[in-house]
């Protein structure tokens, strides 16, 4: 479903990604892990067609990101690291605008928005201005927005960022629900224990380089680690995976 080969990204002489390669299979939950500034968001931005790779190849659902941007954009939903809503529009207006960009007709829009807002327990607040929402609520609206066109693949950049533990657990439950529906989910997160509960595969990145990638169970077996947290810190502290 997603295949990345020798991906490199350079910004004004600064190399953000150095030969990144990994693969995500259809219907998987993939956790992309690493410290701040490791290159996680840059990778997600390339896969979401927001940035073009300097060298290397990235394929999403059989389409190449640097050539088939429009086809990929139709298939993916994307939650940026900062959910970013129009502050002087209501929750409903924010979702309605994005639904319009996906050419969802007016009648269908109303139903979809209602279904999503009820799912996220936000229906009562549909006419509240986005600027007055808490960080957690903004994040929920951001996820609803990413799902408005029922995408095949979801890119969630820090979906639990700023959420209280209860809300973070709700979001992870929702991710599992989406997985059951056959969606492919690519997420970045700092919450290793939570990620371990939902993900099938992982890639660990540091300073723009992949430290390990593959099925979580295979990686744990290979490193004789009991938990994802153990894998993370062993490799971050210089442990060798190969």
């Amino acid at each position, binding site marked *: 479903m997603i295949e990345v080969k020798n991906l490199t990204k350079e910004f004004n002489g600064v190399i953000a990604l150095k030969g990144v390669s990994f693969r995500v299979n259809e219907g998987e939950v993939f956790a992309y892990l690493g410290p701040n500034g490791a290159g996680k968001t840059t990778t997600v931005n390339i896969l979401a067609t927001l940035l073009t790779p300097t060298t290397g190849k990235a394929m999403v659902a059989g389409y190449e990101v640097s050539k088939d941007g429009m086809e990929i954009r139709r298939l993916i939903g994307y939650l940026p690291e900062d959910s970013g809503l129009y502050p002087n*529009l209501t929750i409903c207006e924010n979702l309605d605008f994005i639904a319009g*960009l996906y*050419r969802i007709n007016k009648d269908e829009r109303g139903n979809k928005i209602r279904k999503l807002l009820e799912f996220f327990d936000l229906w009562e607040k549909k006419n509240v201005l986005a600027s007055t929402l808490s960080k957690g609520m903004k994040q929920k609206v951001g996820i609803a927005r990413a799902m408005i066109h029922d995408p095949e693949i979801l890119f969630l950049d820090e979906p639990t960022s700023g959420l209280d533990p209860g809300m973070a657990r709700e979001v992870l439950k929702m991710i599992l629900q989406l997985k059951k529906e056959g969606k492919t989910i690519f997420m970045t997160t700092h919450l290793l224990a939570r990620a371990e509960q939902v993900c099938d595969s992982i890639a660990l990145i540091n300073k723009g380089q992949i430290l390990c990638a593959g099925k979580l169970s295979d990686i744990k077996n290979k490193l004789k680690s009991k938990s994802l947290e153990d894998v993370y810190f062993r490799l971050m502290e210089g442990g060798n995976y190969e």
Partner: protein
Amino acid sequence: MNSVVMEIGKKELKTTFKNKAIIVPLLLAVGISIFSLVPQLSKAVAEGEIASVYLLLFMLLLIPTVMASMVGMNAFLNEIKWRTIKSLLVAPVSEKEIFMGKSLASITTGLIVEICLVVLILVFFPIVVDIPILIILLVIGPLLVLFATFLIIAATSRFPSSAEGGAAGFIPVGGVLAVFFLGFFLLSLLKIDDPTLTNIIIALIVAGITFVTYIIATKWFNRERLVVGL
């Protein structure tokens, strides 16, 4: 018109006109300009100074272009400040649609002001409404709004930081003045003094430059520059 262009335009108008930080300077700009130019126009009309009337009419027509520019200037800057730019760019919307949607809000604003000014001029000033004046009011004016809009949207999409502090606001004003200087330079070369022909030539120059600006602007549009942002 394309439904996505309409959606972007509608959203742009909503977010602009719900924002007091934009509305207040807009109203001030229109108010001050009208109150400073109208008495001079009245005087020129009363004294029958045709050249002054033309000059003042052109100056009045700069008001809608300034309005359109002020709305357009914030189009991409706000998306970056509000961190909504990625959600817009990740949607299956072409560069042309984003550009036209953003332009639509500015053009609508500019044209509404333009219509109000034309009504004000035609109703309250005893100007002989001849063909040259109609060309100025109904052709050159709207074309200038389009030109100023395309110029500001192109500039701020390529260099979003130019909109910070309002520096980009000078770009369309400079562009409009450059077009006029080019027009008058060509007219003096061709030695044309017929007002109708003069205005038709100016209108054609503005139309040509507006079209070229649109083509360059849509080719210039770059998602990555907006994502990397300010």
